[in-house]
């Protein structure tokens, strides 16, 4: 009993810390004072402003679409890359993995600047597609790193057994490998979402022709002071995310109960 509550206290503490800055932002989104210092009084003003600002609305949609699509595509490329990596010899694997991680160690400005040079060099129009491609590019390594440990712990005999039973390679993939690494795939997808949502520098460099995302907008507001409209917007996005997560969890639980065959 005592042990269990100690465990609970630890978890509650972790969640408290993770959510503290977010609640801080939400709190100030109701501040009539105009900045994140000194709470002057309650207001809905910043929320009202969002609904009058179509430009901001487009920017939010852009951000979400880029995040979803780039996470999806990078997850697919990353998962297949990781599966192929696993079957390589140790030496080759190490080399490719090292290359894999180059984009993680490089600061965003370098990635942004070199992608920009790359795109303009091959004459690629800057805008939605250049941003999407770049986000896919810098999300792939994180997917690989999230999927690989699951793949590594998968016993080779599992695949061999399936083959002995007459499964072709497509069946091995969809019936054995993918179900086994599903948690890794989801981890990769969600971390790719994080990378995409957080990115400012790369997007700034490779965007153009009117296409903007939320982080570019927020960072460039810094010199004038970030408006509390952004706090209000983040609050709404945060709440929508939480609702979506709950719905998603509810649905996946239901389909799980029905006895769909997957290993967690």
């Amino acid at each position, binding site marked *: 009993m005592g042990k269990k509550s100690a465990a609970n206290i630890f978890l509650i503490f972790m969640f408290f810390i993770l959510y*503290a*800055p977010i609640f801080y932002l939400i709190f100030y989104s109701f501040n009539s004072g105009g900045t994140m210092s000194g709470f002057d009084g309650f207001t809905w003003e910043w929320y009202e402003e969002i609904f009058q600002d179509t430009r901001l609305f487009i920017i939010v949609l852009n951000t979400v679409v880029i995040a979803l699509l780039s996470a999806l595509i990078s997850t697919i490329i990353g998962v297949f890359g990781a599966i192929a990596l696993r079957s390589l010899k140790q030496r080759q694997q190490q080399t490719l993995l090292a290359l894999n991680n180059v984009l993680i160690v490089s600061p965003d400005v370098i990635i942004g600047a070199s992608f920009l040079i790359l795109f303009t060099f091959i004459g690629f129009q800057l805008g939605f597609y250049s941003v999407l491609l770049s986000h896919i590019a810098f999300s792939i390594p994180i997917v690989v790193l999230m999927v690989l440990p699951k793949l590594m712990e998968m016993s080779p005999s599992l695949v061999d057994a399936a083959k002995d039973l007459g499964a072709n390679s497509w069946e091995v993939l969809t019936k054995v490998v993918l179900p086994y690494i599903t948690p890794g795939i989801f981890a990769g997808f969600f971390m790719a979402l*994080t990378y995409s949502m957080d990115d400012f520098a790369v997007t700034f460099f490779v965007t153009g022709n009117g296409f903007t995302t939320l982080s570019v907008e927020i960072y460039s507001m810094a010199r004038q002071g970030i408006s509390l409209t952004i706090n209000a917007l983040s609050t709404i996005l945060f709440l929508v995310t939480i609702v979506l997560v709950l719905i998603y*969890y509810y649905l996946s639980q239901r389909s799980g109960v029905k006895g769909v065959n997957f290993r967690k």
Partner: protein
Amino acid sequence: MENKTRTLYMIPYIGWIILFVVAPIALVVYYSFFDIHGNFTVGNYGKFFTPVYLKMAISSFWYAFLITIISLAAAYPTAYLLTKTKHKQLWLLLIIVPSWVNLLLKAYAFIGIFGAHGAANQFLDIIGIGTKQLLFTDFSFVFVSVYIFIPFMILPIFNALDNLNPSLLDATKDLGASKWTTFRRVILPLTLNGVKSGIQVVFIPSLSLFMLTRLIAGNRVITLGTAIEQHFLVTQDWGMGSTIAVFLIIAMFLIMALTGFRRRGA
């Protein structure tokens, strides 16, 4: 795996590596040989070995090390306890959700929380410790960095722990192994790949942290990432910025060699 299938899986991945990894590396190496006047030089590499940059490199490694160790220390028990909860997948998702809120906004929130009159100091005052300077200290810098990286550490460890075979743990218990022995001999080795993956995704990007060094540490901490950012954006000395990047990439290669994954049954 058959070679044909493997090649098929590899094509997009290798294509990505060539276009978005090898090409940029080539570009960075190329730029590192030019000075601010656009003349060919190896002077940038010489400059890296001056006290200013060496000191910066050492402090980058030191802070990345601290951030990684503390993330691991906080993430491992969190991941472990999460696997014991009833709705573990939901809780795991809720660990990730805060990372989708804009980083600059969260940093501003931390400036408020750690400020002289912020919530953290009010708490310290109430419990009798009294107000302290928190902002612009190593403590707040490491704290906020850990805050940002911790989901990346929790996820792979959670996945590794979640997959442990309960009967295996029961067996070790039946054999009379103590909790510590079970952890050291059974749990830890089986989750090692997850831990390694977590260490890589935290340590490697922390080497090139920037922005937080200014926002939270008030430039009291200067990392190689900060210097690269400055050289690319402020001083426009792309040569020197690229040179530092080359060193970061080499450092990362070394870390990868040290923390290579092991295949089960290999």
